[in-house]
Each structure stands twice: as C-alpha cells, then as structure tokens.
C-alpha cells in the first residue's frame, strides 16, 4: 500500500506516517499543496491523504487539479474547519472521503480500508467471523448454524463490526454506519445497542466475539 500524505502540520504528518507504516504502508510526505500535487502527479500511489488548509495550494484545489488531469487515485480529505458543509465541498472537489479532525487513527484506517476495498470491487455476499455469519442480501444471521433474529439496527451494527474484519471500530464510525447521524448524539446509544447485540449473539455461546477495546471502541474477533 503506497500512500501520499499532504499535511503541513509536522506532528500530525509524523503521527499519520508512523501509523500507516505500522500497518504495512509505504509513506511519502509533502508539506505544502504544490509539492503534494507534484508528488501526486508523479503517480504510483494507492491513496492520498490531503489536509485542506495547506500553504501555497489548498487541499481542495489540489484534488480538483488532480481530477481535471484524469487522475482517479482515491483521496481522503482531512480538515479541522470541519463538519457538514466542508464535507460536501470536499466531495464536490472530487475527494472520495472526508475525515473531520479530531479523528482517531483507527477511524482513518477504517476509511482507507473501505476505500481500497471499494476500488477492488470486492463485496462478499456473506460476512463471517468464526462461526458467525451474516448474509448481506437476506439479512439472515446465524451462529453455529443457529438462526438469530436481529432488529434492523442490531443487524446494521453487526454488519459494521464484521466489515472491519477484526479491527477496532470507533463509536463515531458506528454511529455514522448504523444511524447515519453526522453529529455526536452525546448519548450511550452505541453501548446500549452493543449490549443488546451481545445478548443475542454471545450470551448462549462459549466464546464471546464482541470485544470492548477501552478508549477506542468495539471489535468483533475471537478472544486472544
């Protein structure tokens, strides 16, 4: 996975590259918009992470110029200015995803994974983890062959955890995947639903699949 990070704030750039290298990526950094554009045109990247506020050339113009040239490399735009209107602006400029600061590294990795997967056009019909399966078309859920009845939200929550393939999913990502809220609801909605899902898929089985990762979120995997 070759990645280009265009970010002028050194600490953020260092943190991003350290995280991505740890996840097995090859990282190139650019500190301003012009250098970023030049590097991006040079090509060979699987994805670009671009901050919006950049010296010389702002992130949105960078993406626009890249798209005008016919370059379709997936781009995730990062911004502190934030929220809804900038998200729309970013997507209009041709970015594939938008991540408002402050974000968690696990959230960034989740976006990258789904972006690269989208590019590979892989979409398994049945999601599975150990003896748990979820058929995406019929929404049928089974564990150890036994059918489990889930409500729509519970099923979406399970899908969101299964898609992460063992990685941690943050509360914010769960909220946007299950409820499609673009805001922080300030409630313990996620925790309440995770508890309900646990009751249905873990309680009657010897191995609990839903793990709480304190401070980070939830993950679905076999206990280590």
């Amino acid at each position: 996975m070759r990645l280009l990070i265009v970010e002028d704030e050194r600490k953020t750039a260092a943190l991003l590259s350290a995280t991505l290298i740890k996840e097995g990526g090859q990282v190139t950094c650019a500190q301003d918009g012009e250098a970023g554009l030049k590097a991006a045109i040079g090509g060979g990247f699987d994805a670009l992470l671009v901050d919006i506020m950049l010296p010389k050339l702002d992130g949105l113009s960078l993406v626009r110029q890249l798209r005008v040239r016919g370059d379709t490399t997936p781009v995730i735009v990062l911004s502190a200015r934030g929220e809804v209107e900038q998200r729309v602006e970013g997507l209009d400029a041709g970015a594939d995803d938008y991540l408002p600061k402050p974000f968690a590294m696990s959230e960034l990795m989740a976006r990258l994974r789904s972006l690269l997967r989208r590019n590979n056009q892989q979409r398994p019909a049945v999601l599975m983890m150990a003896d748990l399966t979820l058929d995406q078309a019929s929404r049928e859920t089974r564990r150890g062959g036994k059918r489990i009845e889930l409500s729509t939200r519970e099923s979406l929550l399970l899908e969101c955890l299964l898609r992460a393939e063992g990685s941690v999913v943050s509360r914010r990502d769960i909220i946007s995947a299950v409820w499609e809220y673009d805001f922080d609801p300030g409630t313990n909605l996620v925790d309440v639903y995770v508890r309900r899902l646990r009751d249905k898929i873990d309680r009657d089985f010897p191995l609990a699949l839903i793990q709480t990762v304190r401070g980070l979120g939830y993950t679905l995997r076999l206990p280590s």
Partner: protein
Amino acid sequence: MTLRRRILSYYSMTLSLSLVIVGFWSWFEFNEQRDEALHGGAEAALKHDPLEETLEIILYGGLPAILLGILGGGLLMRRALRPIEELTEALEKTDVSNLSNPVPRSGNGDELDRMTAVFNRMKERLGLSFTQAREFTLNASHELKTPLTVIHGTLEQMATNELAAEVDRERAASLLEEVQRLSSIVGQLSFLARADAGLLPSARESAALDILVRDLAEETMILASGAGVSVTLGECQSVSVSGDKMRLRQLLLNLADNAVKYNERGGSIEMTLVRQNDDAVFTITNTGIALPAELRSRVFERFFRGDLAHNSATEGSGLGLSIAKSIVEVHQGVIGYSVLPEGRTQVVVTLPSPR
C-alpha cells in the same frame, strides 16, 4: 440649528400668530367704533359698552388665537420632536441581529444628530465585540482540533502498544476517554459558534416530524430501558416542517437524552406531537428531580448544569439544551422549559408548519 433654537422659534411663531389675530380683531372693533362716532356722533359711540367690546375681542379674537395656538403649537412641537421619536424607535428595535446597520442620521448637526452618531458608534463597538466573541469560539475550537488529533493518535499508539506494560496501556486508554470527552465538547462548541455566525447549512426540505418523533420514541425506549424509565408516545399527529432532517433528529435526540439522564429509576417520559393552527408542537415531559425555580430561566445557557446534575454521576457537558435551542431558532421556532405543578419537567418545541 440646535433643537432648543428650533423649539424656541416654533414657539415664537405660534405666539406671534396669536397676537396678530387678537390685534386684528381689536383693530376691527376700534375701527367700527370710530366709524360710528364719525357718522352718528358721540351718542352712537357711547351706545357701545366697553365691557361688551372687550368680551367681543376676547370671544372673536382670543378664542381663535387660543385654538390656533393649541393646534399649530401641537403640530409644530410634534415636528420638532419627531427626530426624538424616530431615534427612540431605532433604539427599541436594536438587538444582536442588526448591530451592523447604523441608524440613519439627519446630518443637520443638532443635539439629536450628535446623539445618533454616538449611538451608532456604540452599536458598532458592540457589534465588533459580538463578532470577536463569536470568532474567538469558532477559531479556538478549530485550533484545538489539530492538537487533539495528535494527542488522540499518540494515545492510541500507546494504548495498543503490545510491548508496553498492561498498567501503562490502561492509563493511555483512560486518557483516551478523556480526550474523547474533550473532543466532543470542542465539537459542540464549534457547532454553537457556527450556529451563532449563521453558518449552519439551511437544507430546506420538507420533513415529516411525526416519523422522526416515532423513530425517536423507539430509540428512547431502548435508551431508557437500562435506566428503568418507561417511555410513552401519546398523540402523534402527522405534521411536516420545513428544515434540515439531520438537525431535527439531533434536536429531538438531545431533548430525549436529557429526559433520560435527569430522570429517576421507575420514572417515565411522555412525548406528544400535535398540530396547533400553523405550528407543529412537540412536547416531552419527564419525571425526576425538577430544577429549583430560580435556575429554570438559565437552562438554555451554555455550560449550565443544575447543581443536582453536578452532584450526581450524570455525564454531559451542559451544552445539549443550548444546541437544541440554536437548532430550534434556525428553524424559526420557539423552545420553552417549564416545571408542571405536579413536579414533572416539560420541554415544548414549537416549529412553524404552514398548511
């Protein structure tokens, strides 16, 4: 011309006019007497009683002069005082929304014109400090976001570092939770700052409020079940409002969350949605310890939390109701908070829903 001189000149004009009328009538009476004396001799002139003549002068000269004085004087005074009235009206209309529009000046340099100028300068300074306060919050929340990302990311690395001791990872995880709380407060502040600056996107779609309320009731039942609170949805009439669905959801969830948080075990929450003329009225009522009367007017203030909430383990930043209020205002609605006689707390949201 100064105001004092203008009033003085109007006053003298009215007075002179009255004198002219009285003078004219006296001249007429004296002339008549002289004519009669000339033609009919002294006897004819003596026929006239001086008292009667004086009364005639007062009646035909003085009364019109008084009437004219009252009418004309009143009219002139009103003209002289009109600028004061205009200025008073402008002062009454001044609020946060129109600080940048100056009051029009007459430009004639009188006391009122000078006062208008002073008032406009004051308005300008007030507007400036409002903008500064707003921009400060907006910029502060933006400036905090980058360092928060770095802190969060670094703590994530520490919390997941398998080489570190368990106790250190636990510490990092505990700090992560605090950073998330901080991030959430910064996000809420930035939301409020953007709402204040009129930057909230105004997606004006027709939103079926009854569907949103039904969804909310279902969600609230699940949220409240753990807290041992029952939720009932009373009357829910089909009403649509024009606005942003996402913000309306946020508003409703905010209110429901409050109703759950400040409730008690075994308590209840009741919601209704009805149409009242051209308004949609959503009411949410909950049991739980009511806020003391003297604090009730402050519930929509930022960071306000009743002492009760501070003492209990209730989480929350105290920004939820401020956010609810700003969303209601973006939708040209009204939000009210009250405590019913039997001690239940009630929040009523009224949103325009023209038929």
